[in-house]
C-alpha cells in the first residue's frame, strides 16, 4: 500500500466579490515508502497549493474549500482535527520551503529553532537536545555546528540556511518529506550540494520525498516517478526514464522542447509552447491545455480528457485524447508526411507557434474589435 495516496484533491479559493479560482482541480498521485516523487509544473499550476493542502497548512474557512482525500498510512489527513495534525506535522511528515530566510525566525538563534522540534516531538531537552541538534547540523554538512547553533539566520549563507531547514525537517526521522522548490533560491553549485544531500538523506533513512519544482532538470536526476501538473490537474505520470524518453502529453513535450540544454548544439532552435498559462480552458469544458496545444482536435473540447494508461508502458498515464505519437510508430510516420506536405505548401508547422502571444486576459477580443 502506498504511504500517501492523494485522490481527487481539489482546492478552491472563493472569496466574496472575487473570481473563484480552482487552484487544484482533482489531483491524484501516490507515494510509496522510500520513493522520490516529483510534482512538476509552471507557476500557477497548483503544485505548491497541493503540498500545503496535504500538510493542512491552508487557512481554515475564509473561502478556501478543500475536497478529496489525502490518505497517509491509513488516515485521511484532510479529515484530521488540528491537534492530531500537529502531531503528524514535523514528526511523520516534514516540509522544506523555497526561501529559507523567510521560513526561519530571524530573531531566534538557529539552535533554539532546531531544538524546538526535538522538544515537541521527541521530548528531548537541555544538554541532550543541544547535543542532538549539533549532531543534526553536522549530518547536513554544516561545519562547526556548535558555533552555528548560537548564530541567527542572517549570519548564515543561503545554502547554510537551507541546510539548517533540512536539519529541522529530518530531526524526527519523518516518514515523508515534502520539499517545495528547495533549491530555486540558490546558486547552481549550492543547488548541486543540496540535491546531493537530499539524495543521501533519502537513501540512508528510507524517507519518502515529495519534490515540488518547476525544473525538469532537477527531477530528471532525483525522482523515481514524475507527475506533470497543468492548471491543477496531473496531465502525465511516469517513471523518470520513460517520461523523458517517451513523453506523450503535448504539454510535457512542449516543456522539454522549451528548455535550453547544456549539451545541445549551439544555434539549435527552441520550440516554445505558444501563449501563456493564462490562456486556459476550465477543465469541465475540455482540456485546459487545448488553447495552447498544437495537437488540438475537436475531441479536446468535449469534456475533461480521462487519464489513459499507456499500452506497454510501466504505470505511464497521460490525460490526452490526441497524444504525441511514439517514435517509429505508424502514426508518427503519417504525421511527419502531412507536416512535410504542409511545409511544402508554405504553411506554418503546427508546432511552430506564432511569436505573438494570445491576448492579455479576456479583454483581448473586444479590444481587437475596437481597433
Amino acid at each position, binding site marked *: 500500500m502506498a504511504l500517501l495516496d492523494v485522490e481527487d484533491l481539489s482546492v478552491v479559493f472563493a472569496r466574496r466579490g472575487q473570481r473563484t479560482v480552482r487552484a487544484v482541480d482533482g489531483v491524484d498521485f501516490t507515494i510509496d515508502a522510500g520513493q522520490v516523487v516529483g510534482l512538476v509544473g509552471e507557476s500557477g499550476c497548483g503544485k505548491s497549493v497541493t503540498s500545503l493542502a496535504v500538510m493542512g497548512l491552508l487557512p481554515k474557512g475564509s473561502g478556501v474549500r478543500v475536497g478529496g482525500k489525502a490518505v497517509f498510512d491509513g488516515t485521511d489527513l484532510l479529515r484530521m482535527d488540528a491537534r492530531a495534525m500537529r502531531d503528524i506535522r514535523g514528526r511523520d511528515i516534514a516540509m522544506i520551503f523555497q526561501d529559507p530566510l523567510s521560513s526561519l525566525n530571524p530573531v531566534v538563534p538557529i539552535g533554539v529553532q532546531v531544538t524546538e522540534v526535538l522538544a515537541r516531538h521527541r521530548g528531548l531537552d537541555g544538554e541532550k537536545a543541544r547535543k542532538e541538534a549539533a549532531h543534526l547540523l553536522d549530518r547536513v554538512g554544516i561545519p562547526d555546528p556548535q558555533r552555528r547553533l548560537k548564530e541567527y539566520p542572517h549570519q548564515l549563507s543561503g545554502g547554510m540556511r537551507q541546510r539548517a531547514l533540512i536539519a529541522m525537517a529530518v530531526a524526527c526521522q519523518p516518514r515523508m518529506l515534502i520539499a517545495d522548490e528547495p533549491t530555486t533560491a540558490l546558486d547552481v553549485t549550492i543547488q548541486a550540494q543540496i540535491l546531493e544531500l537530499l539524495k543521501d538523506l533519502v537513501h540512508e533513512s528510507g524517507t519518502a520525498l515529495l519534490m515540488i519544482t518547476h525544473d525538469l532538470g532537477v527531477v530528471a536526476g532525483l525522482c523515481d516517478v514524475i507527475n506533470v501538473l497543468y492548471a491543477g490537474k496531473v496531465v502525465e505520470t511516469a517513471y523518470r*526514464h520513460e517520461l523523458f524518453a517517451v513523453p506523450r502529453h503535448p504539454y510535457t513535450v512542449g516543456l522539454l*522542447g522549451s528548455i535550453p540544454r547544456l549539451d545541445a548544439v549551439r544555434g539549435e532552435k527552441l520550440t516554445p509552447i505558444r501563449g*501563456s498559462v493564462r490562456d486556459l480552458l476550465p477543465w469541465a469544458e475540455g482540456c485546459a491545455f487545448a488553447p495552447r496545444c498544437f495537437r488540438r482536435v475537436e475531441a479536446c473540447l468535449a469534456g475533461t480528457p480521462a487519464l489513459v494508461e499507456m499500452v506497454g508502458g510501466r504505470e505511464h498515464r497521460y490525460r490526452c485524447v490526441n497524444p504525441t505519437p511514439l517514435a517509429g510508430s505508424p502514426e508518427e510516420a503519417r504525421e511527419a508526411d502531412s507536416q512535410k506536405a504542409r511545409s511544402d505548401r508554405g504553411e506554418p508547422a503546427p508546432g511552430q507557434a506564432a*511569436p505573438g*502571444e494570445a491576448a492579455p486576459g479576456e479583454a483581448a477580443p473586444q479590444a481587437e474589435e475596437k481597433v
Partner: protein
Amino acid sequence: MTANLVEVHDLKVHFPITRGVIFDKVIGHVKAVDGVDLTIRRGQTYGLVGESGCGKSTLGRAILQLSPVTAGSVVFDGVDLTTLSSEELRSMRRRMQMIFQDPMSSLDPRQNVESILVEGLAAHGIGASRSHRREQVLKTLDAVGLPQWALSRYPHEFSGGQRQRIGIARALVLGPDLIVADEPVSALDVSIQAQVLNLLDELQTEMELTYLVIAHDLAVVRHIADTVGVMYLGALVEEAPSDDLYRAPLHPYTRALMSAVPVPDPEVEDRRERILLSGDLPSPANPPAGCRFHTRCPWAQPTRCVEERPPLRELRTGHRVACHWAEDIEAGRLQPHEVAVELVHQPAEQPVEVAAPAEPAPYL
C-alpha cells in the same frame, strides 16, 4: 568601422564600505568588478555567467556607465565612454540599451505602452512628428510580436512574457547597436523563456544587434551566446567560444559549474560527472589572496595558487583561462582532491553581510 563594438580594459568597480554616523569613514571596499578585460565583436552575442555576487550585473552596468567606474576604460565603437561628459554620454546612450530581469518592476505601472515607448524617442529627439514617432513605435511593437492594441494598455494587463516583450521593445525603439540584457528570462516560466530567447535570436539577425547577455543559467547563456565569459568574484576566470567552453572547459570553476547544472535527461543525469564545490562564495570585500578560487578548488596546489593571482592567458585561439595549472588539469596530470570547508569567521562587530548594493533604480 572596427570589428569590435565594445572593448573593456582592466575595468574596476569598487564600492566603498563606510562606517560612522556623521563623518563617513571608508573602512574597506567591495571589489565587485576587479580588473576585467573583454571585447564584444559586432553582431555577436557575449554571454556572462556566474553565481550571484560575482559581479556580472555590476560589470554590465559599468559598461553602460550606469555604475561609477573606479578604473579602466570602456571603448564603445572607438569612443572611450569613461572620458565623456554627461551630455555626450546621454546622446551615446541611444546606441546602447538595456533589458532588465523583472519586467514588472522595470516598467512604470502608470504609463501605458505607447508612452513607455515614445519616452525614449522624445528624450533623444528622434522622429519629427507625433505620427512619425507612432509609426516607429508600431514597427517595433510588430517586431517583438505584440499586437497594435497593446499601445493603449498598461503593464499590469500583460502576462510576464508579454511584459518582457515590452521591455525589449523599449530598448529596440531607439535603434541601438548594443543591448545589455541582464537576466532577460530568469523571471519567466520555461515555456515563456523559450519564446523570449527565440525572439532575441530573431531580432539579432534582423537588426544586426550586438548583445551582452548576463545570466546565472549556463544553459541559457550557452544557447544564446557566441562567446561565453565565466566570472568568479569580480574577475573573468575563463572565456571561450560557446561550443569550446562546453566541450573542453579548462578552469576548475567552469568544470564545477557545468557539472552542477542539471540536464533534463535521466540518461545524462545518471552518468554525469559531478564536481561538488564545498562552501560558499567568499566575500568580495575580502577576497582570497592569489587565485580567488583556491579556497574551493579541488585542484588547488600548494603555494602558487595561494600566492600568485593567475592572469587570463590565451591557451588556444579565442580560449582564455585564468588558472596556473590549466594544461596539467586538462591532461589529467593533476587529480582533484577533497577540499575542507574553510570557515569564514566573522567577528560580531564587523558588518556581517557586505553584499554589493542592491540594484539601484534605472537611471536611463
